[in-house]
């Protein structure tokens, strides 16, 4: 509190001096740093824990209780094939979701924003209501749908029950209301004249969407891709419910399997796997954030 109160005060006293501005900024930084300290402590523990036998607070302990006990044993799982397959499955689900949700949301959002057709309003309210249903409520119904999908000849083996495709399909469906509404919002904000101009210039509807409209909503696409990837990467409930056996386990499910009810849990190993799961996400986030910033800074400033 003191921090946030002091900042405007110092500005009020010397509004025209550069010093006032600087002090204000210093306080702002101090506030930000203070507020991320708990999170930083958490991550610090995570890193320390993965590298030690046992921890007490932030201090690693060895078997005798002294400081030390550095070990790489918690990371042994890296040489195990299971984690790589889990990671690959997580990746497949996340990428399939980004692609599926991306295509359906950008095209559906555009149509809902621009075209008049019977049932448009009902569809919009319908998706919004569906979004309010928690996935848990639908699990049993989805199970039957997936079983039925599995029975389809040729492709059934890829999108049915107990397949990565099936999990991705369910996750895409659950994510779509958000995606479509998000993209519709972005398209709604665009002026009509630009696409009218393109139509008069000789473009087809599809070309207008692809070459003129999509580039204007890149920030929206990037944001949606980011949300969707994270949702797919961290997906637990749906994969846990609809996949049985290690063949199609993804990272969160794998992590949960380490915390079994019967054997004592090695929390340091759990921490290591958790950290491992985060690494691609951090990389992906850095990449997308850069892109987001670029798009905003490059700006689609114009009419």
């Amino acid at each position: 509190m003191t921090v946030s109160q002091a900042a405007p005060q110092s500005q009020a006293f010397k509004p025209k001096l550069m010093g006032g501005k600087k002090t204000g900024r210093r306080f702002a930084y101090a506030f930000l740093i203070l507020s991320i300290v708990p999170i930083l402590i958490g991550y610090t523990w995570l890193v320390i824990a993965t590298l030690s036998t046992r921890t007490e607070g932030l201090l690693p302990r060895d078997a005798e209780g002294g400081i030390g006990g550095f070990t790489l044993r918690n990371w042994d799982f890296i040489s195990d094939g299971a984690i790589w397959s889990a990671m690959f499955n997580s990746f497949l689900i996340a990428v399939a979701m980004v692609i599926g949700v991306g295509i359906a949301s950008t095209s559906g959002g555009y149509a809902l924003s621009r075209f008049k057709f019977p049932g448009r309003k009902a569809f919009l309210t319908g998706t919004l209501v569906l979004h309010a249903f928690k996935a848990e409520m639908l699990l049993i119904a989805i199970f039957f749908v997936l079983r039925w999908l599995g029975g389809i000849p040729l492709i059934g083996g890829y999108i049915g029950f107990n397949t990565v495709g099936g999990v991705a399909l369910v996750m895409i469906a659950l994510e779509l209301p958000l995606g479509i509404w998000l993209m519709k919002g972005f398209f709604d904000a665009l002026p009509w004249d630009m696409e009218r101009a393109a139509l008069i210039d000789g473009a087809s509807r599809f070309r207008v969407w692809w070459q003129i409209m999509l580039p204007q909503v890149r920030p929206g696409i990037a944001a949606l891709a980011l949300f969707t990837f994270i949702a797919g990467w961290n997906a637990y409930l749906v994969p846990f419910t609809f996949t049985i056996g290690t063949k199609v386990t993804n990272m969160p499910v794998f992590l949960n399997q380490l915390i079994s009810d019967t054997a004592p849990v090695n929390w340091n190993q759990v921490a290591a796997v958790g950290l491992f799961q985060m690494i691609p996400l951090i990389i992906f986030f850095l990449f997308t954030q850069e892109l987001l910033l670029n798009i905003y800074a490059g700006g689609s400033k114009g009419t």
Partner: protein
Amino acid sequence: MRVELDGLSKAWDGVVGADNITLDIADGDLVAFLGPSGCGKTTTLLMVAGIYKPTAGTISFDGVVVNEVAPKDRHVGMVFQSYALYPHMTVFGNISYPLRIQKVNKEEIRERVQKVADMMGIGHLLDRKIAQLSGGQQQRVSLGRALVKEPEVLLFDEPLSNLDARLRLTMRGEIKRIQEDLGITSIYVTHDQVEAMTMADKIAVMSEGVLQAYDLPEDLYDHPKTLFVAGFVGNPPMNFFDVEIMSSNGGFHAKSEAIDLALPDDRAQKAAVAKGNVVMGVRPEDVYLVDDTAPPSEGSTLSASIEVVEPLGREDLVGVTIGDVQLRVLVDKTKGARVGDNVELAFDLSKVQLFDPESEKSLLWK
């Protein structure tokens, strides 16, 4: 290309955008659409472009009905009020877009874009992003994009309304010159009467979706066929009075409580046959302050008192009252009109307009 609109209408459940518009545009002519905001100018333009589907009526190009023809096959170019440029492309990207869609070969695209850009005076800006251009430059890009595909019909939707007065003046001349040089049939939507008067071969005046008049610019001004047109065309607007036409000792007089003016025979006769009560219209520039230099003719003067003086630069726009009647008069600045002065006004009654108060149609011009 000759453009004909026949009974063209557009409505969105209840809202009327355009109502039964019929007009012919001769090949190579520039027609201005003039009218207050919301009267359906853009709606009509977008129907010609093929963006809006008419609710009723037809659009024909050279005698062929194009109602069902897609915008891309109509060979029209359009300049939007908002310019509607593609912000993620460069100037070159914008101007070349129609040609790239037509898959014209690279070499030719380069050539044609450069030529159009040079004509617009933006040849050196081709690599710029749209956001790095001034409003006037953006306007030229948008004009260039419309021209590059060599359209047979050009549609302008208030293209100059975002520019400053000076630039508007230059661009006005430039657009007119290009349009004439290329001989492209054009529709030019504008709020600005001067723009319409100076650029157009014919002017269509619209109000509330209805075509009020379609005439040569000078006819609209000198021979307005309806009260609306008389009041809308001309700035500052025409003054109107309710008067009764009476014949007395061989001549006609327009009379009300405050007014008594001798009307020229030819005009008064046409009106008097129809009715006693009429609406009389006099333009602010057809009323003078009487001074010693030019003695007014008999029966054309009234005394008035000055209520407001708005300096317009070269002239003063003076609001005066004659009894309970108010009117606006353009007065030379050198006359030094001052609020509160009592003055003698002389009317140039050879230009007086007379309207039927009920039908609001002119009693003079059919």
